[in-house]
């Protein structure tokens, strides 16, 4: 569904991603694991077109998306949930959702605010609250809901568990599995291996902008050496 090959990304003259390759297949939850500054967010931003890729090929459902503007990529059915959440703080919950709204799409679940409030009951209770006056967890739910309003086929989730209380992290894991059941493909980035193990089917490990390991979650669970080398703090 999403294929990245030989991706190189720079910030100015700093080489951040080097020959990065990964793949996400329909119905899968794939996790990109790595420490602080490994290049997880940069990978996501390269995919959605916020940071230009210097070289490499990225295809989404057979369409080349490197060199495309963000909004064109999004309209192909690729949703992006940024790490910093980037809620529109002056807009209410309903208005935030309205910004994300796109027409229904074949082969992807169609979302309405009502359906989203079933998934995130908290949001339904604060429809008219400005985004700036919500807790971190609520904002995290809102960013995901906002992106889902675009009826994506694949969703990029950048560290969704970051900074959330343990209870909310559990909820978040449930939500991701629900999305998977709806038929969505999820590519998520994480530092939190425990969280990744709750939701993901396959994992890539990234370090200094290079993929160092790839395998199923079961394989990773069995491979203490890799976890030790790339993930422990």
């Amino acid at each position, binding site marked *: 569904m999403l294929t990245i090959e030989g991706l190189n990304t720079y910030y*100015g003259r700093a080489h951040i991603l080097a020959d990065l390759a990964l793949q996400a297949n329909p119905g899968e939850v794939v996790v990109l694991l790595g420490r602080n500054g490994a290049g997880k967010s940069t990978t996501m931003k390269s995919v959605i077109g*916020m940071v230009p890729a210097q070289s490499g090929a990225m295809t989404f459902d057979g369409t080349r998306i490197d060199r495309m503007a963000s*909004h064109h990529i999004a309209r192909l059915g690729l949703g992006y949930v940024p790490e910093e959440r980037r809620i*529109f703080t*002056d807009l209410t919950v309903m208005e935030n959702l*309205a*910004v*994300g709204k796109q027409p229904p799409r074949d082969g992807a679940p169609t979302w309405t605010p009502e359906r989203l409030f079933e998934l995130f009951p908290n949001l339904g209770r604060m429809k008219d609250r400005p985004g700036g006056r919500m807790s971190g967890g609520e904002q995290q739910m809102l960013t995901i809901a906002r992106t889902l309003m675009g009826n994506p086929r694949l969703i990029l989730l950048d560290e969704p568990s970051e900074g959330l209380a343990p209870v909310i992290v559990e909820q978040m894991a449930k939500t991701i599995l629900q999305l998977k059941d709806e038929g969505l493909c999820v590519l998520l980035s994480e530092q939190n291996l425990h969280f990744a193990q709750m939701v993901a089917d396959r994992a890539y490990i990234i370090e200094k902008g290079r993929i160092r390991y790839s395998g199923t979650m079961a394989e990773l669970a069995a491979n203490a050496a890799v976890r030790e080398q790339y993930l422990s703090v």
Partner: protein
Amino acid sequence: MAARPSGRGHFFPSFFPRVAALLANIVIQFMNGLAGASSLFLVAAGLSIIFGVSRIVNFAHGSLYMLGVYLAYSLIEFFGRSSIFGFWGGVLGAAIAVGLIGVVIEVLVLRRIYRAPELFQLLATFALVLVIKDAALYFWGAEDLVGPRAAGLRGAVEIMGKRFPQYDLVLIAIGPLVLGLLWLLLNRTRWGTLVRAATQDREMVGALGVNQSGLFTSVFFLGAFLAGLGGAVQIPREPAQLMLDITVISDAFVVVVVGGMGSIGGAFLAALLIAQAKAFCIGIGDVSIFGATLSFTKFTLVVEFVIMAIVLVVRPLGLLGKLQGAQRGAATVEPPLYPLTRPFWIAVVGLVALLALMPLGGDDYLLVLLIDIAVFSVFAATLHFLMGPSGMVSFGHAAYFGLGCYGAALALLKLKLPMELALLAAPLASGLGALVFGWFCVRLSGVYLAMLTLAFAQISWSVIYQWDAFTGGSNGLVGLWPSEWLKDRTAFYLFTLALCAASIIFLWRVVHAPFGYVLRAGRDSALRADAIGIDVRRFQWYGFILAGVFAGLAGGLFAFSKGSISPETLAVSRSVDGLVMVLLGGVQTLTGPVAGAAVFTWLQDSIARNTEYWRAILGLAILVIVLAFPQGIAGFLKQATARFTSAREREVVR
């Protein structure tokens, strides 16, 4: 104006009629204020909306207003000035036409530079001001055009025994009406929701699948439409003329800043406040207090800037302003300054030596031009010192240049000091001005700081412009000749060259001295600099004063090189010239302002000699440069060499 209490006569018999007359006067002035506020609000609202989404401070917004006035004039002629349809059709047609012009500007110019540094966008909009002014000159001529009165609304109504124009009643209604419509548009439509979202984070809006370019273009249409409408509705009240662009843009800036950037409601309040203040100053007229005559009419020129200065000091974000984060996805990173190396100094010494040999050519005209270039190089270098290393953009830097001019001139003419001492009075006067104004300015940052500098410049301008007895008013001062030993053109040239070169070199050294490091630390992270115990504000203040001192020296030299000065020396257009020089040369380099001043002065001189439309040509040249080299001339050269060397480095690494 007519029923002003005279302050004489018997108290009781005349008391009640006088109170009634005073009251009527106040009411009428209040209504005048309301009528004036509408147009002001329309322009400011447009400016505010455009700024919100694009974060571009659109200097050409006043020019769009001016086009609105001119187009309304022509369209009403075309549709027929005596029919109601002719008038309102003309007004609406003009507004729509200006909206479309805004679209063309957005698509052709601004769209290409959304990611360029903020100051570069500013330069592009300056260029548009120049181009639009000459376009108006070409199509409508230099004469003021007095517009038609509104068909069907030519009469007056009687309010408290006084006549009030019917048309002004309509104007009073237009302001709140547009405010209401805008509110509905922004809060009750999907388009409005997207605009408000993009105002906060346009990159995120794009990642959610919204086409930003379409959104930006439509926002420009709306903003330009409002400017055009603001101009068009004024046609029965004020003639179409070529100065409107600058006066209106400074008014609109003031309103937006007083109201709070990005707040439409704030703009409305501020427009009311300022229009009322102006109306009352006109209404009160001249008042004698204890024998001295105080002219409130003269005060109208500055009252808005005084209000702005007060508001900004008390509420730095304006009446209803909220802190707006920098728009994401805009470029901000400043590269570090390169150390001043020996080859650099050798080149500088070589250049100065070469310039010193110029009189041998015997071309007197060239010397005149070179004197101008030297003087403006210093002026630009001081402005760059503020904008680059200190991170303070000034829209009113001409104030210090002009204070220098007047300081020197008045010392020579009034104090009868010899020319050498009078020249010393120049930096003294400007330094004093910078000391006072700077103290307020460094309390703000960004656009707000820029606006406050503009306010102080306008206040200084209007004092000098109106104080006929002391400063010669609009005529200026004449008879400023250098001492005997400098009478000769060559001698004066060498004198100027030496002083200017020394000043510029001194400024460069300061940037690289510990003081310069502190300033840059403050610019790059005020919080961090504060945390390590640097009083950023104090150092910025010192920097401000230093820039003011040298700008004044340039002004003093300028005064003696020309022999006469006028309030033009500290007008907005001079400040804009300075900004164009600095931006043309590139803010990121130390040599940039000198290159920019040379190119600008030379271009202005050589084009102006050959065509009436030098502004347009200059503007177009700037646009080409902006679109082709978004780093400025010097920045472009540096980047080109850097690309060359880094390509080699990469080869070596591999």
